[in-house]
């Protein structure tokens, strides 16, 4: 089983990378771009075949390591 995890900055936390991308895009003439936010996208191969168990494990990985819940949210997808 594969898990796809999206880690994004919480609303209200300033995103220097996203801001810089937006700025650069404007500079390049993409005037129609509004806010830009950058996050992480992590794909994991899992030996686990039970979806519920896999989900629980990845949830734990997110809380413990993959996301810093002080400033980040995460979302898990299993495929």
């Amino acid at each position, binding site marked *: 089983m594969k898990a796809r995890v999206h880690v994004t900055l919480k609303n209200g936390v300033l995103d220097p990378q996203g801001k810089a991308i937006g700025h*650069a895009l404007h500079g390049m003439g993409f005037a129609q771009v509004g806010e830009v936010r950058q996050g992480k996208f992590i794909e994991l191969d899992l030996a686990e075949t039970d979806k519920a168990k896999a989900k629980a494990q990845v949830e734990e990985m997110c809380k413990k390591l993959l996301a810093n819940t002080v400033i980040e949210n995460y979302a898990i997808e299993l495929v």
Partner: protein
Amino acid sequence: MTKQYPNDLMGLSHEEYDMAVGIMGRTPNHLELGIFSVMWSEHCSYKSSKKWLKTLPTKAPWVICGPGENAGVIDIGDGQAAIFKMESHNHPSFIEPYQGAATGVGGILRDVFTMGARPVANMNALRFGSPDHPKTRHLVAGVVRGIGGYGNCVGVPTVGGEVNFHPSYNGNILVNAMTVGVARTDKIFYSAAAGIGNSVVYVGSKTGRDGIHGATMASAEFTDDSEEKRPTVQVGDPFTEKLLIEACLELMETDVIVAIQDMGAAGLTSSSFEMASKGGMGIELELDRVPMRETGMTPYELMLSESQERMLMILKPGEEHVAEAIFRKWELDFAIIGRLTDTGRMVLKWNGEVAGDLPIDPLALAAPEYDRPWVPTPPPAPLGDVPAPKDYAAALKTLMSCPDVASRRWIWEQYDHLVMNDTMQRPGGDAAVVRVADMKKALAITTDCTPRYCYADPVQGGRQAVAETWRNLNSVGARPLAITDNMNFGNPQRPEIMGQFVGCIQGMAEACRALDYPVVSGNVSLYNETNGKGILPTPAIGGVGLLDDLDHMATVALKRAGDVLILIGAVENHHGGHLGQSLYLREVLGREEGPPPPVVLAAERRDGDFVREQIRAGRVDTCHDLSDGGLAIAVAEMALGGNLGATIQVPADTPAHAWLFGEDQGRYLLAVPEQAEAAILIDARKADVPAIVIGTVGGNDLTATGYYTISLPELRHAHEDWLPAYMAAPR
């Protein structure tokens, strides 16, 4: 009878293919042909340059190991050695600036720690295209980030370098990285394999399909479709490199290594062949034991991969477990992948079957060597009339803010230049000074080359590049000891390019001899051409010197109001100054003309020795050599460095613009307390060293009486603002 050649000769010429068949006594298979191809690539075999490189002086009493090993080794006293080398990563950096530059740093670090040295300093010599070229900004940003990203992470300070911009580099930037390390003279490790039956051990990262045929790419010209050759780009992993440094140095404290070699260009192939050839041994490799990152890898891919952060070692029999424990502790791969034999052959096995079997010496030593046709570069036309500027202050500001002189702060602030706590002189001076840990002494390090001089007159340019590094080391008070070089040129199959190469080497050799300043390591990068247009000839020189006593060190910053400015060294014809190929000519008048300033080696030696001895005697603590832009720029840099003004007097019988902006060689500017002035001038006269007082230190302005007065803040803006503003502009 017409001969049949395979469709894909992998970059070998027909003649080279015939040689390969002769050596094998049969048709080489795909794997074997791939090995011939990389081993005989320009990058690995130096086939066009070898003949000329041999003419460089490489010996001195303090040279422990000259060219031929992974890096050069010199004695710095107290049972310690400095180990250093410079290497190019030009082509990869053009294709992918971040990773290209990063892996360039990683590669040169490995060359140095593989010999037993802890890396203590990194340098970088960079050449970019015209600032107006659409790619330049992106390339500068990526290269600088890449160098910082790698060097900062491994924790080796990046303490200096040089940067030029010129349209000739539009399609071929140059990224030359240098590492200096310190080792104990009784703990230097070499690469010659020894001991039949000894284990061949692989450590570091796993092998993937990175950069296959990178070495041959570095040996080919760019054409417009080069950007398609993308998969050959390697990705660096500085974290693993840091672990590899610590693990290797820890292992080197034990007594189990027979030989060690990093896997650089052409990966496992060149490292195994070199180790075997140097030791006169054979090797049997079981390629299926190589740690692999991907599934389905073939022997061909394993032998040619340029995956980074890998080393090959020969260990003492029965001691493998010692090494294994250390590499496991550092969480790195460790695998015994073969053993040494007495057959003189490289036998490559794959799951028990022989996949390739090649003779080692014929392949490694009989690599083709070419005496390529060359024509000397015609002497430049004499320089016509050079008008004075209408506005001297404006001319000075133009020079201080031009791309080749403007402050590089934007670059070096992205490099951790302080880690290790031994950086005695940060970037911005003449040479970086890095203390030898726990000692009163320090290494001085610089890189220099003036490509526009080399283009106009390769012999003078070659001399100048070496001499400028020598001066920069003297200027801080260090004894210059040896150099490493990075020869960046166009296509050697063109006789005029080969002529540039030959000329530069000749000039370098002359300077090295005159200054007792041998070459101990180096690197050649040819085919820096796009669609038939070559770069300016660029023999980048990295110089290393020793400061015996840190209490006697000079810096460029003015220190005391009231100091007297003394100019050391002669000006052409005792008046005026040399404006051919000067920055004044190019930046203010838009002309690139004339002969470059000549380097008079006897005077160079005499005057440089004098300056250094004055510093070492504790009489002088403020010194700057004169280079790009001449005297006016040197004074300005010293004033900005100390945030203290100065006033200079232009001699009456002289064209002021030539005196201020002429680039006559072999000169230094000292700032000394008034009471020291007389003694220095007397000593100079005794030593036949030209020395004149040209002004005094003080105030908040920079003045050349009768020509300009500029406030320091205005000057600082001119100098500091260009690069950040350029980099901040939208791409």
